[in-house]
């Protein structure tokens, strides 16, 4: 008795609005199977797409002489290739003749078409297929429809990648088309075990994502885990860059746990090691799991000869440390350990700093912020105005700031070297991480000098040692120690890299036969 008013209250509170009700009704209707009545089926699909208000939905319904039944082809104009429809669907239907009683059944129509087709049984399936750019062919009296592969988005041709340039090696980059991207990968991985599984993400907008891996190499539990994380997503995913933020391990961390690359050859190399690659209509792909080394390496490291590759890697390793530590070391030395600087240099620095009214830290922050501004402006500026950035950067910030006694010349060198080093980092995410770490390091150094830098290193190492990407430790195979071919800062010759990295738990641990010691 007492519960009655409460149930009444909850009913009032949770009363669905008329809008919600309508949506629910629509959804329930869409779950139903196709009726077979052409007019009714078309009406439901039209309602789903708000046609005729929505101009994009195209319906071509007519009778064909060869067929006994009426058919209708439904598609979204902007997403399909209409040439394909007219050449490979309409023309055969018009011209070819079918004899006998089978006239107009689904199978006979499918056999007529010069295009790949598949059966569709419910409204929701039909709507989803139309949304991916396929056409749906409905036949009067048949409770099954055909989806036709007529996808035709406009996209760029395969071009040179914008952000990952290489000197030696393939110059093709991914484009905004999943099919092209897949073919770019297949071109280098000729393996019948290369599996491409499709998943549709999101409740409202349907985003197809392709999961690629080599069966028998990639660990099935890894594949399962990737699928699990993808299926947990209910939000609308416009592209892979957003997807990356949904599947990463620690969203607030400064370290990246998913690798984004524009290079198909790089993706193929990761596939062969047992990683999983995610692809959709984006000009890049996502690779999981990753370690620190995935961000540190480039594809070129494997194309160059052993000595050259290791040379550029050492340079890059130095660049990473320069990018993180140089400004902090400058602050620490000038503020706390002036005796560390050679006397002549110290006097020179002191001479130039004499006229600067700010402490070293303020001076450094002015310059660092200016540099970050310059960098951001350089990305956003329309290209016809691009040259102004150089003038502003070089003249105003470099020379005029020194002449105005805002900063000392040595500091301009420090900031310039740091900036240069951060440009030498091959990965955008790693570059961002290094820039953020640099500011943290400056804070530590300004409070505790070199001791502070030591503290920063300790904290950084401890943090990185527990960071994980899809359960793979970020600093593997060093800490924790795993078996793998030598391929970290220094790599061994390619013919010696016969083991796949054990930390990603590949099913097949060997890439090739173990080279004999006397072989080379």
């Amino acid at each position, binding site marked *: 008795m007492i519960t009655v008013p409460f149930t009444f209250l909850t009913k009032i509170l949770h009363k669905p609005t008329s809008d919600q009700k309508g949506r629910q009704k629509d959804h329930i209707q869409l779950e139903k199977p196709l009726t077979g009545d052409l007019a009714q089926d078309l009406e439901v699909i039209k309602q789903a797409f708000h046609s005729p208000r929505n101009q994009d939905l195209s319906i071509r319904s007519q009778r064909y002489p060869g067929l006994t039944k009426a058919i209708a082809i439904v598609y979204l104009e902007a997403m399909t290739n209409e040439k394909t429809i007219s050449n490979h669907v309409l023309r055969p239907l018009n011209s070819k003749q079918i004899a006998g009683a089978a006239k107009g059944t689904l199978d006979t129509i499918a056999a007529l078409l010069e295009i790949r087709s598949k059966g569709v049984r419910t409204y929701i399936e039909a709507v989803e297929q139309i949304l991916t750019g396929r056409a749906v062919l409905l036949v009067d009296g048949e409770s099954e429809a055909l989806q036709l592969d007529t996808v035709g988005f406009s996209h760029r041709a395969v071009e040179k990648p914008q952000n990952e340039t290489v000197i030696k090696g393939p110059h093709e980059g991914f484009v905004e088309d999943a099919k092209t991207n897949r073919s770019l990968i297949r071109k280098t991985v000729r393996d019948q075990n290369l599996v491409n599984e499709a998943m549709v993400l999101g409740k409202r907008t349907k985003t197809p994502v392709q999961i690629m891996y080599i069966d028998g190499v990639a*660990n099935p*539990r*890894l594949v399962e*885990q990737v699928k699990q994380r993808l299926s947990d997503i209910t939000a609308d995913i416009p592209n892979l860059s957003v997807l990356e933020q949904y599947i990463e391990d620690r969203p607030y961390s400064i370290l990246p746990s998913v690798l984004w690359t524009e290079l198909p050859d790089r993706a193929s190399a990761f596939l062969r090691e047992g990683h999983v690659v995610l692809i959709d209509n984006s000009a890049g792909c996502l690779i999981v*799991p990753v370690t620190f080394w995935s961000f540190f390496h480039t594809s070129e490291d494997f194309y160059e000869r052993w000595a050259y590759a290791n040379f550029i890697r050492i340079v890059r390793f130095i660049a990473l440390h320069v990018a993180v530590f140089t400004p902090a070391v400058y602050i*620490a*030395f000038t503020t*706390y*350990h002036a*005796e*560390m600087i*050679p*006397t002549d240099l110290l006097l020179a620095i002191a001479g130039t700093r004499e006229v600067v009214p700010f402490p070293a830290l303020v001076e450094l922050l002015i310059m660092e912020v200016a540099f970050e501004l310059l960098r951001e402006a350089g990305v956003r500026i329309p290209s016809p105005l691009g040259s102004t950035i150089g003038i502003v950067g070089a003249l105003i910030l470099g020379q005029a700031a020194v002449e105005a006694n805002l900063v000392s010349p040595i500091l301009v060198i420090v900031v310039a070297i740091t900036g240069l080093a951060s440009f030498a980092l091959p990965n955008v995410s790693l570059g961002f991480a290094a820039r953020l770490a640099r500011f943290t390091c400056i804070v530590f150094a300004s*409070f*505790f*000098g*070199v*001791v*502070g*830098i*030591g*503290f920063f*290193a*300790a*904290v950084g*190492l*401890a*943090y990185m*040692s*527990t960071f994980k990407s*899809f*359960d*793979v*430790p970020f*600093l593997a195979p*060093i*800490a*924790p*120690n795993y078996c793998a071919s030598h391929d970290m800062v220094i790599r061994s010759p390619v013919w010696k890299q016969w083991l796949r990295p054990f930390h*990603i*738990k590949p099913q097949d641990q060997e890439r090739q036969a173990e080279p004999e010691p006397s072989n080379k």
Partner: protein
Amino acid sequence: MLEQSDGKIGYKEFLAIMLLTIAAKLVHTSPTLFLQDAQTAAWMLPLMSLLVVAAPFWLLLSVLRKTGKNLNETIYYLAGKPVGFILNFSLFVITLGGATLNSRSYVDAMQILYFPRTPQVISYAVFVGIAIYIALRGWESLGRTSTLVVPIAGLGLLTLLVLSAREARPAFLFPLLGRGIPALATKSVVFAATYADLLVLTAMAHKLRSHGALKKGAVVGLIVSAVLLSLLLAVYIMIYDYTGATGVLYPFLQLSRSISLARFLTQVEGVFVGLWALVAVVRTSIYLYMTAVIFGATFRIREYEPLVIPLGALSLLLGLLPANPVVNTMLLRYGVLYNATWPAIILLPPVLWVLHRWRCKQIA
């Protein structure tokens, strides 16, 4: 899940932790203690102490292997609840004392040499705060961080030794036996406390992948540490002479000040100070973590990791008590901590071993 983390570490990580806790003793105040009593023969002390602790540790490891438990559980299992509690609690007090005195001596060095005007509370709080942060990341993280730190620190140490070789005079090592064998022998028993860290670390024996990892890590760790300690002591004596070296409170940092790299770079101290800070803070975090582990094991607290925060704060407050570094080093470390620790190392393992034998016989 690709791999369910079991929270355990392997041989390499354990070895790194051993080296960071034992061998790194020579980069803070401890050498002064060695030198004070053994004089020119101080460099032999680590090796002789190793001989002293070898048998007890062998017994300890064999007991642990047979029970398959960690140190504290073994103590409870063999000594019963009331006695076991007393033993475990004393272990906890020793560990907390060690952690506190260590962190205090690091902060003292930082203060005296580099930040004389910073209030001690602040530098101490920052130091312990960072150590707590590292310790909170867990046992696996400590193992991994140590494996990363040890090679860097080793490289730094090697550079320091090479650069300071020019100043060394082997003649300072003589007379070879210092004040004679009897004095050395008594001292070597007291300095068995140097290796107490292994006793403390066996409290995490169940978090090692295998008993083999523990055994191998212990043996290699002890030997390498002893050799390093002995080598560095010899270097200190050869450079400062024993009288001078006894008076130097922070010989490692002092040494890094006296070396130079050609005529242009006359001071390369900063590099070594950075490494010293790195080692110091990681080492302190290991001690804080072990304090929490032993406290948790004593009071049977399953979730012991968060205890690092209150115990770190306690250690900070206790560490502020000693009036000055001399009290800290001479009176508390040598007078109290070492004298409380060496009997524990030498007596506890045989007692456990006897108890274990007795227990086995009883069951049979």
